[in-house]
């Protein structure tokens, strides 16, 4: 923990165009290469992992990447597809072939309708940024009950924590079911008091995403919430 902190204190904020490294390192996300040198393409924090240098953005829109689990909102319906808002720059159609049910032509509305929330996976992104999404995987489904709200997509990694540690703490201490979409949409279900505590915790994470000792803060917040009982 201590060692971790001292490394975090060396965090450096870079702006687009800042020189990050020469050709001795590998260019990671949030960078571009010109004349063999690596430059930042985003406003964010410089991050070095082994031999790769990248930039973790401070803010910004959600950019879909293949394999992302996201929470989408149905905004329109066609005869053989639904139009889903996953907060990406482009609208994302969900074709009937990509859902776990057999849907006859023109019967899309019997399964999901405008205003429904769905757990989805991004299965492909082409060079123009158009996305292909699917519900055909274990655990992907229509969401019912609970509450949904948005956080900045750049803060999602903090909400999830290192290999899911943060989200696990919240699940354990509130007893809620929580899904965090990579697009910054979060769904929580449980009893009302616990939902409100979980929402409060996530709002705190979003506000203090770049501060240290966040895990401890969240733990004490949830431990000391009055509704936790014994």
């Amino acid at each position, binding site marked *: 923990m201590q060692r971790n902190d001292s490394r975090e204190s060396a965090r450096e904020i870079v702006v687009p165009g800042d020189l990050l490294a020469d050709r001795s390192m590998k260019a990671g996300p949030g960078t571009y290469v010109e004349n063999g040198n690596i430059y930042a393409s985003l406003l964010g924090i410089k991050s070095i992992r082994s031999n790769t240098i990248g930039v973790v953005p401070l803010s910004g829109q959600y950019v879909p990447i293949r394999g992302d689990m996201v929470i989408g*909102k*149905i*905004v329109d319906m066609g005869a053989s597809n639904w139009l889903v*808002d996953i907060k990406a720059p482009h609208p994302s159609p969900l074709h009937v072939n990509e859902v776990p049910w057999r849907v006859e032509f023109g019967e899309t509305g019997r399964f999901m309708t*405008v*205003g*429904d*929330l769905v757990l989805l996976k991004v299965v492909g992104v082409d060079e123009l940024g158009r996305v292909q999404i699917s519900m055909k995987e274990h655990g992907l489904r229509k*969401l*019912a*009950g*609970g*509450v*949904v*709200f948005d956080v900045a997509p750049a803060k999602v990694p903090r909400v999830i924590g290192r290999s899911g540690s943060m989200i696990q703490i919240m699940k354990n201490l509130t007893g809620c079911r929580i899904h965090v979409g990579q697009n910054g949409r979060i769904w929580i279900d449980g009893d*009302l008091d616990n939902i*409100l505590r979980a929402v409060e915790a996530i709002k705190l994470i979003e506000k203090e995403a770049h501060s240290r000792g966040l895990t401890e803060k969240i733990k004490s917040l949830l431990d000391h919430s009055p509704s936790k009982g014994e």
Partner: protein
Amino acid sequence: MSKDVMADLKRDHIVKLLSKGIRVDGRKFDEMRPINIEKNYIKSAEGSARVHLGNTDVIVGVKMIVGQPFPDTPNKGVLTTNAELIPLASETFESGPPGRPAIELARVVDRGIREGQAVDMEKLCIEAEKEVWIMFVDIHIIDYDGNLFDAANMAAIAALKNAVVPAKRADKGEDFPLPVAHEPISVTAVKIGEHILVDPTYDEEIVADARLTVAANENGNLCAMQKGGEGSFSVDEVLQVVDLSRRLGAEVRSKT
């Protein structure tokens, strides 16, 4: 204006919380969001103010020029109020000529100032039937999170209060402060199910059945009203909103 589809379960959650007496952001039903008013925000305007009402962010500027009065009010100045909902403020706003919501916003703010007799228009007359001051109140929305009416109204009143008539510039004598006679402040409430909530956020506005804006001046006299939405208010509910408007309006007025 493209409409935002709201997730059904978000709507259900808001309604469920209300039935337990809680609002999504933890406020009381009759509690406004934190208000922050920066006066004289734009130096090139005759008067201006920037208002933060929670996450809603509005700038109002007042500009004045010399022009002709209307024939039916030959000895009174002219008031023109304008609002535009630019895409910068919200993903649901489209560029182009002002749509229905923008026109309604401008008209409600205009009505508050005009019918509340905020400005003594006769003092804006230079020469009857020939020359009067024409006053432009321009509303700019920087960020939209519900309740533009009240944010724009308080910004407009604050802007009028620090406005100076630029007489010297127009060669009409010495500059003088804009003659503000009254301070009408509007308070907007929405009805969701059986509940009346003041100062709705964006989410609450979408869920709301009906909306009522009531403007009252510093003596508690009502000067303007606007009802929106498809639902209805009973007489008692209207009176309840009127009371809220008088009570909360006084608090807001002290900040402008």
